[in-house]
């Protein structure tokens, strides 16, 4: 993919040569309303997730805290936090970034923005109903798929609307040849409706019997976190790293290699060893999990070679910082997941806090951080305004980074300690549990830092919007009061 005209362009349908080139500014203008809506609500949800997460975390400081209210019990606020993060923030931020990237890489305007806005509305109505449902005790009981039926139906149709707009945008692209990111993003677009509808049909609408529910739930959760988040996060990173540093990505083929190995091995479910299912299921899961070492290393090599020797002026670009951290977290969490899938390690880490630490490192450390970076890159282009206080963007980065480190590190270390104590039959169970409390309490610091970061994130976005609104108001006023010619 070079800057020269590619030969395939001349044979592309719709003969783009005939129509004038669409400028990046025009593409941004077409994305502005729908993508900003997705980003803003994502920012709102990530803050809500922090709110629930902190309440859940406080229970480990004092179990009696807020115990009188059924809707604030740990078993409800904990899933509310994770669902707000995954569906409220993750999916929306991911889709917003995806749409913008698909439009830009295809050098075409976003197709049917109203469809995206309708989808956005359905999605948010669904997530709101769902989180309220979980708080009210309507959770489905399947981890990562807790949102009740009345939430998942509007969410599914919301996704279809947004996804269809993404497909149409891809279809009408003027640049026929694909950049590597488009492989990732397009696959992600197809992936979610399939896994989400299958899981909901087989678990909620017409539940399968017995332990198959847990097997399908594990399959779904793994496909969502490893594959969907992986595809969107890597797709965005493979675009933004070269774009910001103005250097080519080290290898297109390595990117393709990552794509294939990720979708093939990453999609095989993570059933832990010792689960109450026939032995081949955990064994096959381990097989696949160990093979995901290959895409993880491929990403590490590709990113390292791209950034190798880079010392450009964009080095302190906050978007790049977020994404670089996201890549590091991707590799680290991936290695943790490979390690934890090995029989000997899994005997220790299974059922401990190591597992949520690894999960949070994927969802937040890798995916959310990459999305923050992408949003900070995209939003100034969408609004054609710079952030009023660049320092606040940097502050968000440091808070988020320290937050996730202070959250995941104590849990991972405490989890290993917990696992070792659990496997020593002489240690009474209560001692095992109380032994994890210092680590759990330490992780609350991480929760708090992330929460402040999310508040700043929302303020940054809102500040830009206010600036934009103010400017357009002024423009409109000046157009009204003065002659039209003066404005130019």
């Amino acid at each position, binding site marked *: 993919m070079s800057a020269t005209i590619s030969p*395939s362009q001349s044979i592309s349908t719709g003969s783009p040569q005939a129509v004038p080139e669409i400028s990046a500014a025009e593409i941004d203008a077409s994305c502005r309303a729908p993508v900003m809506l997705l980003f803003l609500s994502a920012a709102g949800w990530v803050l809500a997730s922090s709110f629930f997460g902190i309440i859940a975390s406080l229970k*480990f400081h004092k*179990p*009696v805290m807020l*115990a*009188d209210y059924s809707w604030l*019990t*740990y*078993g409800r606020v*904990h899933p509310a936090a994770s669902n707000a993060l995954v569906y409220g923030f993750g999916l929306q931020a991911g889709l917003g970034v995806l749409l913008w990237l698909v439009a830009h890489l295809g050098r075409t305007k976003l197709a049917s923005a109203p469809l995206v806005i309708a989808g956005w509305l359905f999605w948010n109505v669904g997530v709101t109903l769902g989180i309220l449902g979980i708080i009210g*005790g309507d*959770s*489905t*009981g399947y981890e990562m798929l807790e949102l009740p039926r009345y939430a998942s139906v509007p969410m599914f149709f919301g996704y279809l609307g947004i996804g269809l707009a993404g497909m149409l945008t*891809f*279809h009408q692209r003027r640049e*026929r*040849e*694909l950049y590597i990111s*488009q492989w990732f993003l*397009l*696959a992600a677009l*197809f*992936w979610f409706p*399939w896994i989400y509808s299958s899981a909901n049909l087989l*678990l909620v609408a017409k*539940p399968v*019997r*017995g*332990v*198959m*529910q*847990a*097997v399908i739930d594990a*399959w779904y959760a793994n496909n969502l976190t490893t594959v969907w988040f992986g595809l969107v996060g890597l797709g965005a990173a493979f675009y933004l790293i070269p774009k910001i540093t103005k250097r080519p990505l080290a290898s297109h083929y390595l990117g393709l290699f990552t*794509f294939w190995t990720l*979708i093939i091995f990453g*999609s*095989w*479910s993570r*059933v832990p*060893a*010792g689960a*109450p299912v*026939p032995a081949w*299921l955990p064994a*096959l899961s381990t097989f696949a999990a160990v093979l995901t070492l290959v895409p993880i290393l491929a990403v590490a090599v590709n990113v390292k070679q791209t950034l190798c020797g880079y010392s450009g002026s964009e080095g302190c670009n906050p978007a790049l910082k977020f994404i670089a951290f996201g890549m590091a977290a991707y590799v680290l969490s991936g290695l943790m997941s490979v390690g934890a899938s090995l029989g000997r390690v899994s*005997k*220790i880490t299974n*059922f*401990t806090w190591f*597992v*949520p630490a690894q999960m949070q490192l994927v969802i937040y450390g890798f995916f959310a951080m990459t999305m923050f970076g992408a949003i900070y890159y995209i939003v100034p282009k969408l609004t054609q305004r710079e952030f009023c206080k660049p320092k606040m963007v940097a502050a968000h980065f440091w808070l988020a980074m320290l937050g996730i480190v202070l959250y995941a590190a104590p849990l991972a270390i405490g989890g290993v300690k917990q*696992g070792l104590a*659990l496997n020593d*039959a002489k240690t009474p*169970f*209560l001692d095992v*549990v109380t032994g*994890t409390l210092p680590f759990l309490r330490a992780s609350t610091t991480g929760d708090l830092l992330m929460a402040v970061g999310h508040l700043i994130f929302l303020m940054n976005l809102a500040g830009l919007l206010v600036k934009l609104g103010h400017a357009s108001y002024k423009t409109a006023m000046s157009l009204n009061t003065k002659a039209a010619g003066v404005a130019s």
Partner: protein
Amino acid sequence: MNPGPLVFLATFFALATSWLGFVVMPQLQIGRQQQVEIKDTGEMYPARRPGLAKQGEEVYRANGCYYCHSQQVRPLGFGTDVARGWGARPSPVQSVAQDYLYDQPVMLGSQRVGPDLTNIGLRQTNEVWLLSHLYNPQLTSKGSTMPPYPFLFMKSKLALGEKPSPNAVFVVNGPKENYEILPTDKAKALVAYLGSLHSEAIVFETPPFPSTNAPAASTNAPVIATATNSVPTNSPAK
């Protein structure tokens, strides 16, 4: 060539493989399990939950008990599940798919912030203990990190000299006020559900330890599934 369809085919191929391997194939194998007859007792295993326990399962789900309590005992050699007394089968294999036939939803849990509850119905048969534990874990297990669930109970004032109800979990005879704590229907259902949690029946998948195999021990041997189960109904080994 338009690479769009190629990306779609790649996605379709990868997802279809994963779908076949982890959804369709296990569904064909263990998705159609039936009850099995236990030799000696002639009972069918697992038993369906009685109504109250079924309601308790809803309480367990709604309040997310499974975020801290697992319901799966790992086999021998996987941690100390057996040594901690969580398993009830005299077998190297502990929890198996058969155990979850009538769970809806199946809440295996992924954390052990609290102890495993697979066999809580065998370990703790004292309902008052369980109710007290739910009302305030500190009453029964000092130092427990479990949050109390006072919203599953109601406070009822006692007139002077009035005898507390036999169902009372906790009675306060203070100088200012007398009251008793009574379980709500939800608490009673939850305790019934906990009582229904047990999986100790020996089935084909969980052959007992060789020591219990000796003919001499036949009279006190554990309940053993009939050999009808030894012909795999779902799928043969080959």
